[in-house]
């Protein structure tokens, strides 16, 4: 037998209840040979001791159960968001708190573009943080009067453009498209909302944001962001699984230097050329090619929109500000039919439901599918799950449905939910991790990166502290304990991906995937959980220290 390695650590948080804490872990062939202390491990035979983690705290590598490869892709472009964000190369991009800051950031990026007419693309901007003020061509024309400047908003449904872009796109005061915002004088402001208005820009500069995450650079960037945040397994929670996409993912993940296990989920109901039956057959076939770093078997459906965009489907009494109910992305009846196909094929289905009415539709579909085709341990999961009611969670517990909760929303949009979208009571019970656990629902918590940053310790901090950007504690009764939050970002997420037998805890037989931390998340004050420094990851025994 080859020698194995023993890593002594300052402490190991295993997430294994029969041995919650340990001082050393032994690794052989990419797997955990044993966990305990040096004396309990040396009996395995010839070993070497690697004490590089002697002053580190090890946790199971974090699992992000709801992210997108686009998180890697967007970093090809300039970050223009309100909150601080760290790029794949470790650069910290400070949040831009006013329009002048946005202009300054874009000017710096503009100066670096090689040719005078190449468009400047940015992302992550969100006007919701600027009150009534809206960014306009007044600002973006200061960036450039010669090249198109396009700033995609954080929700990817709106963008801002400069006058050059408007001119090239043929957008004038005469353009009658509803999504072309105009000022009091009737001139377009440069803010273009939704599909038709954005089309005019994309036909001139290209739809660069659409597939930014699916090429090799995008996937590599995703790996780098993951490495910096302690993530060793992440989902791409909607992928066409086309031959091309699969080949690219295979090529990148096959590289031993790529530090991430990838779990792409098939885009259910959106597949243009495939029936649900064909799609299910394709996934089943792909499962046969699963390897340690590329895992197929998940399906994703999107039922409604977003709460802050007023497109989520809400039960009575609807939106706090009186906005009309949101939209169905797919007809509930279609969903019912197609869900059954993927359910019957033995796959795990992740269903985007932000609003409580959308959750009802999802649960009705799961119940009817289970009646028609009983299955145990299906692990169907409601994704976002933001407005789940206590009764819905009791129902989920009975049917074995998991919740992957969008806890980051509490910080980023909690103030808006309190004041505008849901009102105080429902805002304080949104993203209800505590009630879910009390009801016996298995939970994960997530970032939906790039919508919010990939950083599971931050997500855990949100679920524990429930602080909004303004500092309000949004529903103290839904706060969970640090231990519970750490469970949610490891084993909890692994469970929803049917990977909890392989990853999510540090115990003999599992993959040697660790997050390397410079402080003990269970020892720091809960309010500082997000500040615990990540020194890197270990993936299948290979160490990826952050340089």
């Amino acid at each position, binding site marked *: 037998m080859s020698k194995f390695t023993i890593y002594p650590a300052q402490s190991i948080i295993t997430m294994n209840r029969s041995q919650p804490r340990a001082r050393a872990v032994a690794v052989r062939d990419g797997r955990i040979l044993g966990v305990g202390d040096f004396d309990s491990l040396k009996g395995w035979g010839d070993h070497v001791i690697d004490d590089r983690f002697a002053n580190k705290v090890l946790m199971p590598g974090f699992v992000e159960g709801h992210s997108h490869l686009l998180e890697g892709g967007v970093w090809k472009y300039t970050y223009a968001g309100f909150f601080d964000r760290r790029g794949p190369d470790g650069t910290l991009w400070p949040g831009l708190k006013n329009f002048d800051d946005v202009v300054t950031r874009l000017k710096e990026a503009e100066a670096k573009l090689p040719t005078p007419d190449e468009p400047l693309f940015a992302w992550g901007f969100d006007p919701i943080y600027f009150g009534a003020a809206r960014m306009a061509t007044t600002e973006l024309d200061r960036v450039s009067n010669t090249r198109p400047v396009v700033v995609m908003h954080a929700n990817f449904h709106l963008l801002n453009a400069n006058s050059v872009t408007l001119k090239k*796109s*043929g*957008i*004038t005061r*005469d*353009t*009658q*498209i*509803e*999504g072309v915002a105009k000022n009091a004088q009737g001139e377009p402001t440069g803010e273009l909302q*939704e*599909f*038709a*208005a*954005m*089309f*005019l820009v*994309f*036909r001139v500069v290209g*739809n660069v944001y*659409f597939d930014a995450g699916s090429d090799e650079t995008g996937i590599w960037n995703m790996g780098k962001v993951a490495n910096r945040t302690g993530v060793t397994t992440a989902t791409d929670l909607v992928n066409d699984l086309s031959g091309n996409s699969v080949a690219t993912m295979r090529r990148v993940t096959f590289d031993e230097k790529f530090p991430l296990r990838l779990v792409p989920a098939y*885009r259910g*109901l*959106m*597949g*243009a*050329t495939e*029936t649900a039956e064909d799609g299910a057959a394709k996934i089943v076939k792909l499962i046969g090619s699963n390897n340690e770093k590329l895992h197929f078997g998940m399906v994703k459906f999107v039922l409604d929109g977003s709460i802050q965009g007023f497109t989520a*489907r809400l039960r009575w009494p609807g939106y706090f500000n009186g906005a*009309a*109910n949101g*939209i*169905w*992305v*797919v*007809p*509930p*009846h*279609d969903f019912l039919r197609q869900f059954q196909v993927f359910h019957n094929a033995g796959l795990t289905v992740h269903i985007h439901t932000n609003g409580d*009415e959308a959750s009802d*539709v999802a649960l009705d579909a799961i119940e009817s599918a289970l009646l028609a085709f009983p299955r145990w341990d299906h692990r169907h999961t409601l994704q976002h799950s933001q407005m789940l009611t206590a009764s819905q969670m009791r129902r989920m517990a009975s049917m074995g449905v998991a919740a992957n909760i969008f806890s980051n929303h509490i910080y980023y949009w909690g103030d808006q939910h309190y004041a505008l979208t849901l009102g105080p009571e429902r805002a304080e019970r949104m993203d209800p991790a505590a009630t879910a656990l009390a009801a016996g629902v298995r939970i994960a918590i997530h970032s939906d990166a790039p919508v919010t940053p990939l950083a599971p310790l931050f997500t855990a901090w949100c679920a524990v502290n429930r602080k909004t950007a303004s500092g309000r504690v949004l529903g103290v009764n839904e706060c969970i304990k640090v231990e519970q939050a750490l469970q949610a970002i490891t084993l909890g997420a692994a469970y929803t991906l049917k990977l909890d037998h392989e990853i999510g805890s540090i115990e003999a037989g599992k993959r040697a995937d660790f997050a390397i931390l410079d402080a003990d998340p269970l020892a720091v004050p809960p309010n500082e959980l997000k500040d615990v420094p990540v020194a890197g990851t270990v993936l299948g025994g290979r160490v990826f220290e952050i340089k």
Partner: protein
Amino acid sequence: MAAVPICLIGGYLGAGKTTLINHLLRHAEGRRITVFVNDFGSINIDADLIEATEGNKLSLANGCACCAVGGDLMNALLALDKTVRDNPAAAPDHLVIEASGVADPWKIAQIGFAASTVTGGFRLDAIIVLADALNLAAQLADKYVGESVARQFAHADLVVLNKADLASPAELADAQSTIAELAPHARVLETSHGRLSPAILLEEDYPERVFTPAASNTLSNGFLQSISAGEAHESYVSAAWQSATPINRQAFEEALRALPESVVRGKGILQFEGEAIATIWHRVGSRDTFRDAPEMTDISRWVLIAKGDAVGTLFAAFRHIGTLISSVQR
């Protein structure tokens, strides 16, 4: 470069959108129609009609094409737009977009409101929403989709009340009055199996299809035949006018306002008094659009299509403006 006219086909599941589209593709009658459907699942095209299959696109032997766009209409439109810009000859005569069962066709139709200011692109022709004569009431009462179904009708130009053959007179009357409330500006076409002529569903290119060039004052038979082509389609009446003297714009617009609700389509090339170029006029439902023609015309010509047998009323509106040159009733 001319904009491609787009026709939105909306309506909830089961209203017959794909049946109507299948009918349209089978009776394209020389029109090169590109159809965007959500998926190929229910499109039923005879195998011998299919000339080539490439990815998510089927090319048909009759010059039409059918693309499955799934949830990605943006990229499908961008791809078609690029094809047309690279090679204007590849532009389809019509783009027909099947909206998903819960989509609001009005939102998609916005794409057709930019053509006045950009080169090429898309120009809204019509918003056609299908209603299931048997199940409309139940769909509107559905707690999940009721509002979405209602919203689809708000901006409809034409409402196709489908499955009329299966509905009782009382059911039909109920559906009619519901639609009148939901779609106040629309004209309603009763049919079954989507058996409507492309001449009603789609605007025509002017003036080639409507009139034969310089063939005295007789109307080309091609167009009128197409709206009453044997047993294939529902029957409609049509009437065509012409005028060798320029038309008073105000009088023409007044005549339009006086048209009975039985008129579902109108189209023409008009030379208004004192104007340097001719105007292309197009009506669908109750909505009129006017746009500049490339040049002046010596003879103004226009045609109306109406349901029922209201030929007399049709004549009345334009009696003092032009000369009736042909009418057909089947």
